[in-house]
């Protein structure tokens, strides 16, 4: 046995896990399956929160419902696990109620883009000062692997047993068209780029959106003959980083090539700035 496993982490001799102070360690291990990408994206979010230098006491995480929606339950910050699809409007109220707060929405593709799709486009249109991180695992994991608004055409899920007849959303294109001021996409394998992106998004004002592709080996992978490690290898072999790519080229199709990178980074007055300027009487 290696010396590395003794003495115990957190003892006087061994420093704790670098994120120990930001997780509710009494709730770990979390509910996510072996190989699930949510934990990695969640850890990247916490790392970015720490390294960004923002006041963590003024930082909140809001989640909706689903596997990714459980993220709020593991972060040792003010955290809100809301109703299905409604993380963004809840976060909107939180931010408007106290503009000093840094509000990070962490949720899944089903939550943010099917049941909550309307809220996403409107928050982006208003340029609400939120950082929205979407863990896209291509299906509804919590309920056992049903087709989502992001499931690739012809992919098998429990509700598309002969393959998905529909086309998926191109999420960065949707975010771009709705007016988001920061848009990026990474996979959980591209952890460093992802962390940098999240850090940038948190410190930037306005509506930021980061799509994170992560495997759902149990519910999506199993039905589409993809083991967790194989999915990560696809992320390595079938992706290309192309910053500022044309948003209409950003379809997720791993039979071809998937473009990652930072696609939008622009400035626009935020919802609160516009409200103060337009609606409040001059002092």
């Amino acid at each position, binding site marked *: 046995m290696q010396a590395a*496993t003794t003495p115990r982490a957190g003892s006087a001799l061994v420093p704790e896990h670098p994120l120990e102070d930001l997780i509710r360690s009494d709730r770990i291990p979390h509910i996510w399956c072996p190989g699930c990408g949510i934990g990695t994206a969640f850890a990247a979010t916490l790392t970015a929160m720490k390294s960004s230098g923002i006041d963590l006491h003024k930082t909140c995480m809001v989640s909706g419902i689903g596997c990714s929606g459980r993220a709020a339950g593991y972060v040792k910050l003010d955290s809100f696990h809301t109703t299905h699809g409604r993380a963004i409007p809840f976060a909107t109220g939180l931010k408007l109620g106290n503009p000093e707060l840094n509000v990070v929405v962490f949720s899944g593709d089903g939550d943010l883009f099917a049941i909550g799709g309307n809220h996403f486009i409107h928050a982006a249109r208003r340029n609400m000062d939120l950082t929205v991180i979407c863990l896209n695992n291509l299906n509804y994991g919590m309920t056992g692997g049903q087709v989502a608004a992001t499931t690739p055409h012809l992919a098998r899920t429990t509700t598309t047993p002969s393959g998905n007849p529909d086309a998926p959303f191109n999420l960065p294109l949707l975010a771009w068209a709705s007016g988001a001021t920061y848009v990026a996409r990474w996979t959980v394998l591209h952890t460093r780029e992802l962390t940098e992106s999240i850090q940038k998004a948190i410190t930037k004002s306005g509506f930021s959106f980061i799509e994170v592709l992560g495997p759902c080996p149990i519910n999506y992978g199993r039905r589409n003959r993809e083991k967790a490690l194989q999915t990560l290898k696809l992320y390595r072999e079938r992706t290309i980083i192309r910053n500022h790519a044309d948003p209409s080229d950003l379809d997720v199709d791993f039979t071809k090539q998937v473009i990652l990178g930072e696609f939008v980074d622009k400035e626009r007055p935020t919802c609160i700035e516009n409200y103060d300027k337009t609606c409040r009487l001059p002092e």
Partner: protein
Amino acid sequence: MEFWRVPLDAQAIEISRGEVHVIEDRCKGCGYCIEFCPRGILAFSARFNKKGYHPPEVLQPKSCVNCHYCEIICPEFAIYSVDLSSLQPPGL
């Protein structure tokens, strides 16, 4: 390794060294740290943890360059590396 020309700052360059720590009972055995360790120093151990998974173990502790990749790819907060120089007093 022999250099055809020795870089001028070869004496000044230090390769960082790390020490890997595993919180075994958090591990769910996905194998990401093992697969993606750039130095290939990790492997599944024969042991079972509390949940019945085989946590990783460090095969070549001296080869760790403290890149933290195992730490950031791990979905479970179960593995991390620390800078060895920060653990030991100088001269040890």
